[in-house]
């Protein structure tokens, strides 16, 4: 007789984390292929968590840039936010940490593709884009940008731990962390290692269509589950202005009301929308600073408003 597969018997509840004191021992672990390995390893909190806390003590605001969905513009928006934050106040220090191990885009988007990382006694030095803007990415550590990083979860987690505990950022006002799509190893590791360091919150990026919002809702739920504050949602590629006739088109139709409606339903702040501007896309490809070179672009105007709201939200938490 047919039955419904609702909870396949050997797929348990949420993993407590391979580093958790309960690793391999929680009821959730029953049936997991890794159970024996986790249970036999050393239990207890990862010393890396304390290292990360110490390292990031001088970073005022730590912001994760997330999206359940790929290709919505996380890296582009991270770069845009960081450039904008650095430009509006030359006395504030801003940095970008790229924890997308398989698809690191920040070196290209920030225009520092072939730079190298220096190591000193106080740690790894990030690559400077400007006096008050720096970047760290696995992209800088590859011999060639075409090298595929074919790593399973544990190795990626190790790299993220190193990035968070060994990069010598100095005093920072904002550290923006660009993540890969999904809700997996990188996201769990980042939230675990940052748990004691005081994560300000997450900015979620989406495009208007339902196929993107489907994944973004999961991401927002993930944030609630691991207790990360959602600072707000940015809707990217919301509208396209034809360069010929200047009329508007919806490339990715908001069949279910777009990000604004989703934010109302889930009671999270809506930070704003960014239109699709091919010139901006090209500038990102070439690693150019479109904020200073295209100040009149609708994207730059919209970005200014989003950054204002973001700064307000971050500073309200500090009070």
């Amino acid at each position, binding site marked *: 007789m047919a039955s419904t597969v609702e909870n396949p018997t050997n797929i348990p509840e949420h993993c407590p984390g391979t580093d958790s004191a309960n690793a391999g021992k929680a009821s959730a672990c029953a049936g997991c*292929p890794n159970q024996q390995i986790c249970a036999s390893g050393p239990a207890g909190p990862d010393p890396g968590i304390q290292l990360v806390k110490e390292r990031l003590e001088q970073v005022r605001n730590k912001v994760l840039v997330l999206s359940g969905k790929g290709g919505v513009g996380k890296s582009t928006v991270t770069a845009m936010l960081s450039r904008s934050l650095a430009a509006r106040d030359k006395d504030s220090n801003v940095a970008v940490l790229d924890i997308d191990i*398989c698809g690191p885009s920040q070196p290209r988007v920030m225009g520092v593709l072939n730079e190298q990382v220096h190591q000193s006694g106080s740690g790894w030095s990030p690559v400077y884009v400007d006096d008050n803007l720096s970047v760290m990415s696995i992209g800088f550590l590859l011999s060639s940008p075409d090298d595929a990083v*074919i790593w399973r979860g544990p190795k990626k987690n190790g790299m993220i731990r190193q990035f968070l505990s060994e990069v010598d950022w100095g005093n920072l006002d904002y550290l923006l962390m660009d993540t*890969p799509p999904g809700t997996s190893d990188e996201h769990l590791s980042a939230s675990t290692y940052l748990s004691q360091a005081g994560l300000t919150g997450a900015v979620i990026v989406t495009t208007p269509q339902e*196929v993107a919002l489907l994944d973004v809702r999961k991401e927002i*739920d993930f944030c609630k589950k691991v207790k990360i504050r959602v600072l707000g949602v940015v809707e990217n590629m919301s509208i396209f202005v034809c360069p010929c006739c200047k009329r508007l088109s919806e490339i990715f139709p908001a069949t279910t009301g777009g990000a604004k409606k989703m934010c109302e339903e889930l009671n999270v702040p809506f930070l704003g929308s960014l239109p699709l501007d091919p010139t901006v896309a090209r500038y990102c490809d070439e690693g150019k600073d479109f904020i200073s070179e295209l100040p009149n672009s609708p994207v730059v105007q919209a970005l200014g408003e989003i950054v204002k709201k973001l700064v307000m939200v971050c500073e309200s938490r500090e009070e």
Partner: protein
Amino acid sequence: MYLKLTRRKFLDCPGTNSEDAGKSEACQGCPNQGICSTGIPVAPDSDMEAIRERMSTIKNKIIILSGKGGVGKSTVSTQLAFTLSRDKNIEVGLLDIDICGPSIPLTLGLQGEQVHCSGSGWQPVFVSENLCAMSIGFLLPRADEPVIWRGPKKNGLIRQFLREVEWGSLEYLLIDAPPGTSDEHLSIVQLLKEDLTGAVVVATPQSISLLDVRKEINFCKKVGLPLIGVVENMSGFVCQHCKKSSELFTSSEGGAERMASAMGCPFLGRISVDPRVGRCTDSGLSYVDAYEDQPVAVQFLSLAKSISFF
């Protein structure tokens, strides 16, 4: 002192079940190394036999990949599945191995459907008589329930999908992968090995996309996965108002066609931007059925033809 990861660090995991587990050069520095190298005898993988048997009734197993997210893998997989299954004599299956972001239930219009389990295995969910699918999306209590799993658990589900789903006789099994070159990709290649017919790699014209797509092509070459070819999606947009065309995602390096040629990989063609593709994707409809005479439908038909000739 300059920091550069040595070539050694990028060698791939041999697999925890492999004889080289923990002993290969690639294992150095891996947190699991000690455990893998304990010398506990590695039992032959009994699942492989079951997987081989399931796959034996499927003629073509094609994986749709991209290093980059959001280029349209799920859209292309879905529309390709719809297009191939227009011929009612051809049985098509679509397997969604994107565990964290499973889009296929939405793109095929099957949200809310459940998976039934019979004595002969898990039954895939049918869209039409000759088109069926399997996804973790069908197993979740709610569509917005996040799947917060680390690698080993994701691998476990992919293994289950391959072992338990009763596809029956299929002409094509299309496998929709998540972006990247990580657990899911390694698992599917290790579990299916020579059974995989080949890979279709989806790209967009932007350099930032091609950067990741090159890595994916190198991954395919490294693991011995035949490359059916590269498709350039979101290639060109015709404004519905003035009918002039523009590029949404321009490339300073000649787009996917030039990249494919430089990497010795076939180029399967372009798919232009049509907002109606987005609408079809969101509504679970076949674009080719709805807009047969449109340029993008012709492009999808051409892509299906190229694949059928591989």
